[in-house]
């Protein structure tokens, strides 16, 4: 109540200041009048009374000022005055202000940009009800596996396991209050909008989800309804879809009558039943955002694949649940793990071996927080982003040290002004506040500019991280968290660099500063006065060294990764993704299509060799299965799995993968001949250490791969997923001999004579010639693919190099400024030395020695710090140790050279000082 009154009174006073002063004037006049009357009544003459009364009252303005400062609003006005004064001071030295604001904008902007991404990827919760209650069964990175789940954490499940848990949950025997499942892979589908399904075909990304997906998440639709459990009760019976806000806007122009409209998805008519709100992107936070969600029971129609919903089906679903906050997580985890083990045991059936039983006892499920959704991007970029966050903070610290130094120097030149203000009765507190205010003015202006810079920077960063995905859930627009972060960083920065000068100012004494030779007094202030700037320079050198050396490590890591042997051709290879399935081809028609494709593509000018396969080089699929080699008795618990790919003729020739033994897959491997497979060295060495792999046969556990396959060749090991992987087992099946769904090839690969991107147009034309309905989903060169697989390394190394150069230039500006200032203050001393006969070289050395000492101290402190930082990032390095001496030496050299340059210029100027001018310098 009283606080409210104070506030309203203050505001009234602030806005009614004129009226109030007029009233006060009238009151004072009355006072004077009465006082004079009284004095005259006591016998004074009129003139004497008037004079006495005026003396008593004193300055009217002082009275007004006193009344005014009795209220809180006067503090506000003082602040405003100080702010205006501060702004004037900054405008008066535009060069300094510009440098300060730009370096702050860069520092704060870099922090904001990285933080925006960190916030997007690491902090943001899904826009659902109570996201902190959501738990994910495992990290959700695996996608699609047949069987052979060994000991260890499990994060992927079959549909019938989900049904089993759901059933138990419905009966209320669980420590979980809701459970939903969704397909682990997003499905690219072909959509025709328009009546009768004859509109143009477009591509969309959809996810298959259980009927209670939306209700467990607690996500409400914007329009219409979400899926209900009844939508996913019987297979193939409820063709409905919920679409995302963005998809609604893009494809239907935000049509308000969308609910109930029909669209054709992969040839089946679906009804749109609802639109989700703008922020809802599903539970997967990855480069591509979802366009639609469909009931899991429509899996055959959406995936154009045989049912995955049967018992003993594929492990292909992720599970999320809502936990009961009253039940400890450990208890829920034990319950889920128990359920999984029982399920796996049941699945094995009666003939389960005791070994397998023991193995199943070692399978467990980790319940992880799911409120932020499932994201492989997060996993991939978490460490790089943390490292970059550290880097940009160091950059900002360096910028702070710079500004602290500049402001210290400025404070010193303002000593007279400040001493005058003190002498005139200004309080020290107010002067300190003034200096801090100027610092904050700088930091907030820099922060505002930084926010704008960050917005642009973040867009570029997101484009990089999302790898050119058209629609990504990551957004550059700063949300409240980001704004608060920037605000806090600006405030912290301002205080950090404003504190030193403010403290210094608070120690200024009146007397000597107002004397004629204030400068001499200040410069003879001794080493303590100059210690702080030196400390700041030393810390800048130290931090710059850490940044430079780390950037060097990352750059060399990137080069090592790029220059290593991938085991295949990394130049002049074009990858084209197409889908015969979307075009309606049946598996039996494929071999004829492949033959036509091969004939046409291999004849294209500029194409050295063309082939096709299920997966291209460096986009690892997740197709793997145990194999049973005839005559090979596996040891208990032996890993008998291999990754699988399916390839057409000329595959190894096209991607330049050397065949070591036997022959490649070729034209002779037809549907009717003996089934041929080529294995890599890792398979051959594991199963056939004597080198007699050729001619052996094996069967594949994946039931869709039928028959016995004969090893016809062995090829060299290569990298199949990414540049850091260890040699992995890989078997290449002849695609023309596969049946059913496995017969589809998705990637054309063309080795070209020149730049592969130039052939892309002709490839598209040739495809259209063969079948205009054959959709091309993606075209990229192997170089682009390689860049993508090295995304984290490129991001870290390029950004950390950029930031360390930024830091280095900031440090240089700082050192240059400090040296210039020191030299300026010592001008008369230098003049005396020169006049007394000191040589120019001696003066030069005297000044340089000081910088050298700072450099040496900085480097001495920086080396152990750099080694410590190197250990922190060790896991991100490749092909070198964190204490790589060459990198460290290079960093020291660079920093030494640049620092000495920054010190040499002012030193040379000092040495050229004319003694006569210098002595008159005061």
């Amino acid at each position, binding site marked *: 109540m009283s606080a409210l009154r104070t506030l309203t009174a203050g505001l009234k006073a602030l806005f009614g200041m004129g009226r109030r002063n007029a009233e006060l004037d*009238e*009151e004072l006049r*009355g006072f004077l009048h009465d006082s004079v009357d009284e004095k005259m009544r006591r016998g004074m003459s009129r003139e004497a009374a008037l004079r006495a009364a005026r003396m008593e*009252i*004193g300055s009217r303005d002082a*009275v007004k000022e006193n*009344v005014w*400062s*009795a209220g809180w609003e006067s503090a506000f006005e003082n602040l405003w005055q100080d702010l205006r004064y501060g702004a004037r001071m900054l405008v008066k030295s535009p060069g300094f202000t510009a440098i300060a604001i730009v370096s702050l904008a860069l520092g704060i902007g870099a922090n904001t940009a990285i933080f925006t991404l960190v916030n997007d990827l690491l902090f943001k919760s899904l826009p659902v009800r109570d996201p902190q209650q959501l738990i994910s069964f495992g990290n959700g990175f695996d996608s699609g596996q047949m069987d052979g789940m060994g000991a260890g954490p499990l994060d992927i499940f079959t549909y019938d396991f989900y049904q089993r848990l759901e059933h138990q949950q419905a009966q209320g025997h669980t420590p979980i209050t809701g459970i939903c499942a969704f397909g682990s892979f997003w499905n690219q589908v072909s959509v025709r909008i328009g009546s009768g399904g004859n509109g143009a075909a477009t591509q969309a990304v959809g996810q298959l989800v259980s009927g209670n997906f939306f209700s467990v998440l607690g996500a409400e639709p914007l329009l219409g309804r979400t899926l209900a459990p009844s939508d996913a009760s019987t297979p193939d019976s409820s063709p409905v879809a919920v679409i995302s806000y963005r998809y609604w806007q893009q494809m239907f122009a935000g049509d308000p009558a969308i609910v109930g409209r029909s669209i054709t998805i992969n040839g089946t008519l679906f009804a749109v039943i609802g639109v989700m709100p703008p922020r809802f992107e599903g539970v997967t936070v990855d480069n591509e955002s979802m366009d639609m969600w469909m009931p899991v029971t429509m899996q055959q129609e959406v995936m154009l694949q045989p049912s995955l919903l049967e018992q003993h089906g594929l492990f292909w679903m992720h599970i999320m649940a809502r936990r009961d906050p009253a039940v400890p997580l450990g208890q829920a985890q034990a319950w889920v793990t128990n359920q999984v083990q029982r399920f796996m045991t049941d699945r094995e059936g009666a003939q389960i071996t005791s070994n397998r039983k023991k193995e199943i006892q070692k399978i467990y499920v980790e319940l992880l927080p799911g409120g932020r959704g499932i994201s492989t991007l997060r996993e991939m970029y978490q460490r790089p982003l943390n490292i970059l966050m550290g880097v940009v903070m160091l950059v900002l610290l360096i910028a702070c040290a710079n500004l602290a130094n500049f402001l210290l120097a400025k404070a010193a030149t303002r000593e007279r002004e400040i001493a005058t203000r003190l002498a005139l009765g200004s309080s020290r507190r107010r002067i300190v506040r003034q200096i801090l205010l100027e610092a904050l003015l700088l930091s907030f202006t820099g922060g505002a500019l930084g926010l704008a810079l960050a917005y642009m920077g973040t867009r570029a960063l997101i484009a990089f991280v999302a790898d050119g995905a058209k629609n990504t859930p990551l957004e550059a627009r700063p949300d409240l968290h980001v704004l608060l972060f920037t605000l806090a960083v600006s405030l912290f920065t301002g205080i950090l660099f404003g504190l030193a000068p403010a403290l210094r100012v608070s120690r200024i004494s009146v007397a000597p500063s107002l004397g004629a030779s204030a400068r001499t007094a200040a410069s003879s202030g001794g080493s303590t006065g100059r210690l702080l700037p030196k400390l700041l320079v030393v810390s800048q050198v130290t931090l710059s060294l850490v940044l430079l050396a780390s950037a060097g490590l990352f750059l060399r890591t990137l080069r090592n990764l790029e220059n290593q042997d991938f085991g295949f051709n990394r130049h002049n290879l074009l990858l084209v993704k197409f889908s015969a399935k979307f075009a309606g081809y049946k598996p039996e028609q494929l071999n004829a299509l492949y033959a036509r494709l091969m004939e046409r593509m291999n004849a294209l000018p500029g194409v050295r060799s063309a082939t096709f396969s299920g997966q291209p080089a460096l986009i690892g699929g997740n197709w793997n299965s145990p194999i049973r080699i005839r005559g090979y008795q596996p040891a208990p618990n032996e890993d008998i799995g291999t990754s699988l790919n399916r390839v057409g003729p000329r595959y190894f020739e096209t991607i330049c993968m050397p065949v070591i033994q036997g022959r490649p897959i070729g034209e002779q491997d037809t549907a009717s001949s003996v089934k041929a497979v080529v294995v890599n060295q890792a398979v051959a060495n594991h199963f056939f250490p004597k080198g007699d792999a050729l001619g052996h046969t094996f069967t594949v556990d994946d039931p869709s791969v039928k028959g016995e396959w004969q090893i016809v060749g062995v090829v060299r090991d290569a990298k199949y997923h990414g540049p850091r992987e260890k040699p992995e087992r890989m078997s290449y099946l002849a695609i023309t001999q596969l049946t059913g769904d496995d017969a589809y090839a998705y990637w054309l690969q063309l080795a070209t004579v020149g730049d592969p991107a130039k052939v892309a147009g002709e490839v598209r034309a040739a495809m259209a010639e063969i079948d205009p309905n054959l959709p091309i989903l993606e075209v990229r060169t192997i170089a682009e693919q390689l860049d993508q697989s090295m995304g984290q390394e490129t991001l870290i190394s390029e950004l950390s190099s950029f930031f360390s150069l930024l830091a280095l230039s900031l440090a240089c500006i700082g050192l240059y400024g400090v040296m210039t200032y020191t030299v300026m203050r010592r001008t008369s001393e230098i003049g005396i030395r020169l006049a007394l006969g000191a040589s120019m070289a001696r003066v030069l050395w005297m000044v340089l020695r000081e910088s050298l000492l700072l450099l040496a101290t900085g480097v001495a402190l920086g080396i152990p710090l750099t080694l410590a930082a190197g250990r922190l990032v060790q896991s991100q390095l490749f092909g070198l140790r964190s204490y790589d001496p060459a990198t460290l030496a290079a960093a020291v050299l660079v920093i030494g050279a640049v620092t000495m340059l920054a010190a040499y210029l002012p030193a040379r100027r000092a040495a050229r000082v004319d003694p006569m001018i210098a002595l008159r310098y005061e």
Partner: protein
Amino acid sequence: MPDKASELVQGTLEMLILKTLALEPMHGYGIALRIEQVSNGVFRVNPGSLFPAFSRLERSGRIRSEWRATENNRRAKYYLLTEEGQKALADETREWGRQIAAITRILEA
């Protein structure tokens, strides 16, 4: 009338103003004059501290003001004690008495 007026003890001016206003509403000069007369000229209050004190008291709701005509037909701002002011005066008088008694005891000990 003694030549030398004493400085007011810190923080007592507001209490003296409240006490003066407890008798009747008064304008600024009236209050100053009354304090000077009643204290036999020991305390002289100048406008530089009087008016800020009015402002503070008015802010805290202990007094309020209104423009009235004076006895010699001039317009002047009169200050009136509010209920809150009466309560504050009683509290402060009691507190002051306690302190004075304590100080006297210490001085006479």
